[in-house]
């Protein structure tokens, strides 16, 4: 396979996985799920680190560092806030839980 096709394959398969893994989510968890997914795309931090690490001019460096800060806020804040939400679901859970579906 040529390289773009390899990437396309990964992309298409990921689409199916993405839909499949959340297809049975109960509406109770919509908010934490949205927030958790939000944290995951904070992985753009990796891209921000890469471009900043190869910056050759001051302008590139500055823009890259801004991107690193923004991406870190997205990633760290996203995971922390999701954990805080979910903590409330699990704390002091009485007896066997009644899970919908």
């Amino acid at each position, binding site marked *: 396979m040529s390289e773009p096709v390899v*990437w396309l394959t*990964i*992309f298409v398969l*990921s*689409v*199916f*996985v*993405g839909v499949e*893994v*959340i297809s049975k*989510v109960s509406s*109770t*968890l*919509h*908010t*934490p*799920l*949205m*927030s*958790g*997914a*939000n944290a*995951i*795309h*904070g*992985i*753009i931090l*990796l*891209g921000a*680190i890469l*471009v*900043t*690490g*190869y*910056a050759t001019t001051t302008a*590139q460096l500055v*823009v*890259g560092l801004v*991107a*690193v*800060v*923004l*991406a*870190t*806020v*997205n*990633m*760290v*804040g*996203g*995971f*922390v*806030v*999701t954990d*805080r*939400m979910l*903590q*409330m*679901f699990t704390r002091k859970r009485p007896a066997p*839980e009644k899970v919908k579906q």
Partner: protein
Amino acid sequence: MSATPVWAQVAYLVAAVCFILALKGLSSPRTARAGNLVGAFGAVLACVVVFLYAGLDHVVAILVAIVLGTAVGAVGARRVQMTQMPQLVALFNGVGGGAAALVALLELGDTIGTRPAAFTLAATAFTILVGSVSFAGSLVTFAKLQELMTSRPVVFPGLPVVFGLSIAAALVLSVLTVTGPALWIGVVLALVGLLLGVLLVLPVGGADVPIVISLLNAFTGLTVAAGGYVLGNAVLLVAGTLVGASGTFLTKLMAAAMGRSVVNILFGALKGGSTLGAGVASDRPVRSAHPEDVAILLGYAHKVIIVPGYGLAVAQAQHTLRELVDELTERGIAVDYAIHPVAGRMPGHMNVLLAEAQVPYEQLVEMDDINSQFKQTDVVLVVGANDVVNPAAKTTPGAPIYGMPILNADEAQQIVFLKRSMRPGFAGIENELLFDPKTTLLFGDAKDSLGKLLSAVKGL
């Protein structure tokens, strides 16, 4: 850019699997918290690996930036009130989109000399454009939810024209990026994207904003995926695509819970005629009562259903409400909470807020399961909710919420509203149920009113 060594690629694969497991875990209450931690582990792993192989410059500066971002993100996430969760998620989403757009701009500036493939340039243009849309759109949703600006739809004459022209401009600039890449084209494209983001969210009414957050979240996911292609990084591609696909699907689920289509939510206001209700207090007569009267209604009922809304959370009255419910339950009264899917400001938001007040999970009943029970219910106590019990959703075609499934509170014997004032709900529509002969209103701050109700019920 140096080639990625095999061990690093394997580490990236592990990170990608972590993200899949995270989403999977987040779909079930029992595994959600672990799922989120697995996702965080994957993200940290991927970011550590890149430092080990890539031979980066400016490492100290990057680390300082990461520490700074961590401080801002963690403090914001820890300090925020649960009621303000939706706007925080919007903000985090926006900065992620902004970061992706900046990364693509830098990459564009860096690779112009090397004549990248057309497909790579197309992905670059996509990342710049959609990342900017997501950034600006999220900031507007933040402003709407934080009530820095009106939460009502903002429409001005000619908006569809400006919107259409902006889209055309974005397409032309994207094509130019592919045919004759230049940094200035990318910058203009980003500016057009910012404008598009603002125009996209302005006409969306307050009650629909959560759906837009979810949609923009999916946008940012796709942006990150395209960025991953541009940088030749598989973990970005997989993670971004996962979020893009699941986010799009989640947006559809949420819209379905409101009985709306995504297109209708985004562009409904542009068609006009959906601004029923003036957003001001009505002076039609209503029946208001004292806490003692309501306490008697509740104390001698057999079955009570609580309909909690965002107002409950704003008043921080969840704990007082739970005490009242405990008191009623001790008197042998059957009490349930009816949870509308979009109660609060985000789907599932109310569950989070009540869980915070340690309301047992079993007492929270979803709309479809409880709607048939209202007929046999003596008293419905609506606390700080409005739109989710507004019969206009069933009876008034043309109302902004028409078609949204509602809780059938109007079928109960008695309805009691705890309200601060006669101002309409978030959607800005008058609620006929308030003027129903079966309805009693108890005015005042929710926490205050619930406290009075509690002591009055105890005194019965």
